[in-house]
């Protein structure tokens, strides 16, 4: 056996295995949530009840999807958004309905917030013809372009310049739409982001680039894959930036609304870090050995769905009975979505060659 040198060269900072013996070292520090009430923020009681419903739907949709995946009902990847629902929910409420949204492959919540029904979403996971992307995309490629949700994309960082391009087209067409481009902390390390930030600032593109910092780039903690504070990268581009709590939908709403209003006014881009937490593994095959149970539990204490529920109850916006009713209704909606997905047909063989071309189709050497 080779003798271990006393000072061996080390490159990537060492993770949990050699770390602090179970002591919680949080991968992201959460900034304080807003202390404003929904009324202070201009939201009605119905708005916040709606937010709760939407967050609960995203949560239950994915929990059920996970069960179905584990039962072997469908294959492929399944990247769960669980824990991050306040980000999609607060953002979609803050933006106009015709503002453009694009994200990476952790996209179910975004689809559900932008008009993909639970049925269409579940059917897409099952690879059925009735899915939002006709079963051609699966979990990573939810989309509803009609409602300005341009989809989930599978190459880390690859959709960031595309988000810039959506904003470019909006500026070109002078339609006053804002684009919000979402990606994970892992994508911060991709060159595509930096090229896009530079051009966006230079060309004054009306785009908000948002890092959903959930603490992990797959299994690599943020402190092990990237240097310094993520939001501070904006400084290098002279870009406006913000960092805020992503476990509270009202905080996300407040910040995203202010930012979107400003972008609409001056057409200057923003770089935003929203700190959140991913409860589940990167995908379904992830044993999650890179973090402690204690760390996960700490974040679950500030669960965005529970938080909103408590808010509704504490402020007497809804009674316990009302909440239960909502939960039951959504539970049914998700179960119906599973039935729908199971009963739907797979795409027919002819679908293999469909949707490739908008113009004259051409397939080399098609039999």
């Amino acid at each position: 056996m080779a003798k271990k040198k006393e000072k061996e060269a080390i490159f990537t900072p060492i993770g949990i295995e050699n770390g602090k013996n179970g002591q919680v070292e949080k991968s992201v520090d959460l900034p304080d949530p807003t202390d404003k009430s929904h009324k202070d923020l201009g939201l009605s009681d119905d708005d916040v009840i709606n937010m709760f419903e939407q967050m609960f739907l995203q949560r239950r949709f994915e929990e059920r999807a996970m069960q179905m995946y584990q039962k072997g009902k469908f294959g492929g990847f399944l990247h769960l958004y669980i824990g991050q629902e306040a980000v999609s929910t607060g953002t979609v409420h803050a933006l106009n309905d015709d503002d453009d949204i694009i994200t990476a492959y952790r996209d179910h919540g975004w689809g559900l917030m932008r008009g993909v029904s639970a049925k269409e979403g579940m059917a897409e996971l099952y690879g059925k013809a009735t899915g939002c992307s006709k079963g051609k995309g699966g979990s990573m490629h939810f989309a509803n372009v009609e409602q300005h949700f341009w989809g989930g994309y599978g190459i880390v960082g690859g959709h960031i310049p595309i988000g810039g391009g959506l904003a470019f087209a909006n500026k070109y067409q002078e339609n006053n739409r804002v684009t919000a481009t979402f990606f994970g902390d892992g994508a911060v390390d991709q060159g595509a982001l930096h090229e896009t930030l530079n051009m966006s600032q230079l060309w004054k593109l009306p785009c908000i680039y948002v890092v959903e910092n959930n603490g992990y780039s797959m299994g690599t903690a943020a402190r092990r894959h990237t240097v310094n504070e993520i939001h501070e990268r904006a400084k290098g581009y002279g870009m406006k930036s913000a960092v805020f709590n992503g476990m509270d939908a009202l905080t996300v709403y407040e910040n995203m609304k202010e930012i979107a209003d400003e972008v609409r006014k001056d057409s200057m881009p923003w770089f935003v870090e929203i700190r959140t937490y991913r409860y589940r593994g990167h995908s379904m095959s992830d044993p999650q050995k890179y973090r402690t149970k204690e760390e996960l539990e700490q974040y679950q204490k500030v669960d965005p769905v529970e938080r909103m529920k408590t808010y509704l109850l504490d402020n007497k916006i809804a009674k316990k009975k009302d909440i239960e009713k909502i939960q039951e209704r959504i539970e049914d909606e998700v179960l119906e979505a599973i039935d729908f997905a199971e009963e739907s047909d797979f795409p027919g063989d002819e679908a293999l060659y469909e949707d490739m071309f908008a113009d004259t189709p051409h397939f080399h050497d098609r039999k």
Partner: protein
Amino acid sequence: MAELQFREAIRDAMDEEMARDEKVFLMGEEVAEYNGAYKVSEGLLDKYGFKRVIDTPISELGFAGIGVGAAMNGLRPIVEFMTFNFAVLAADQIINHASKARYMLGGQLNTPIVFRGPNASAGQLGATHSVAYDSMYAQFPGLSVIYPSEPDDAKGLLKSAIRNDDAVLFMESEQMYGMKGEVSDEEDYIIPIGKGKIKREGDDVTVVATGKMYHIAKQAANQLAKDGVEVEIIDPRTIKPLDIELIVESIKKTNRCVIVDESHPFGGLASEVGFLIQREAFDYLDAPVRRVTLPDVNAPFSKPLFDLWLPDAKQVIDAVNTVTYRN
């Protein structure tokens, strides 16, 4: 017919399409204030202004992706690469996004975008500036790949490419920009993508060549004609979709074929055409199909080595002599 340089034919095609459709714009390195690294876009900034002729930083991945997003969201970008050798940095956008987004979202969006610029080698520029990428991109479903050889083809095909609702790669050559040729002055001159052309008629052997290699094939054909060998040159003009029918028809007449391809030998246009010919015209062949390609070696700088590396008329003549059993 007007006699135009290759660059002028390309410029005219862009000019006409920009005049026709407000949504068409040009972006790339040095396309605006510098008037184009190879003067292809000269004058377009003056005519269309800074909104529609846009200088980009040297960020191929970034601006190619911005182009893809703009195409999805209603515009028709022409993205110029200073050469397709640099577009390798943008390959993720071309291969993973422009060609796939529509399919993977079940047809919810379109990507009407043209990526254009010079392809392959242009003299002694070393290994990283000398690669032909047409066959590589033709590998990917969803992309059309055009590599014209003459100004007339360039004009008609680029106009088609800009109007196409899907992603098209349009390849040029630094060494051909100054080359002159008759260009149709037909109003709104369009050549459909996917149609090859018989550029020279002959009964003895079919030579398939496009882009810069067409001119090598033509030199060889002129030389061979002096020896009484009449070459039929088929220029597919577009690598994909490939007009294999036109090639097969010609072989039924000549019974012999040589393919001249500027790519390296593995899995290029020559391999694909060769395969299809053996399947579609097996009974018509009087000799095995031959090809002239780059060797499986990187581009050298040194002049004698470079000349050895690049296909030339002599190699084409040798191949023709082989398939006609004149060697």
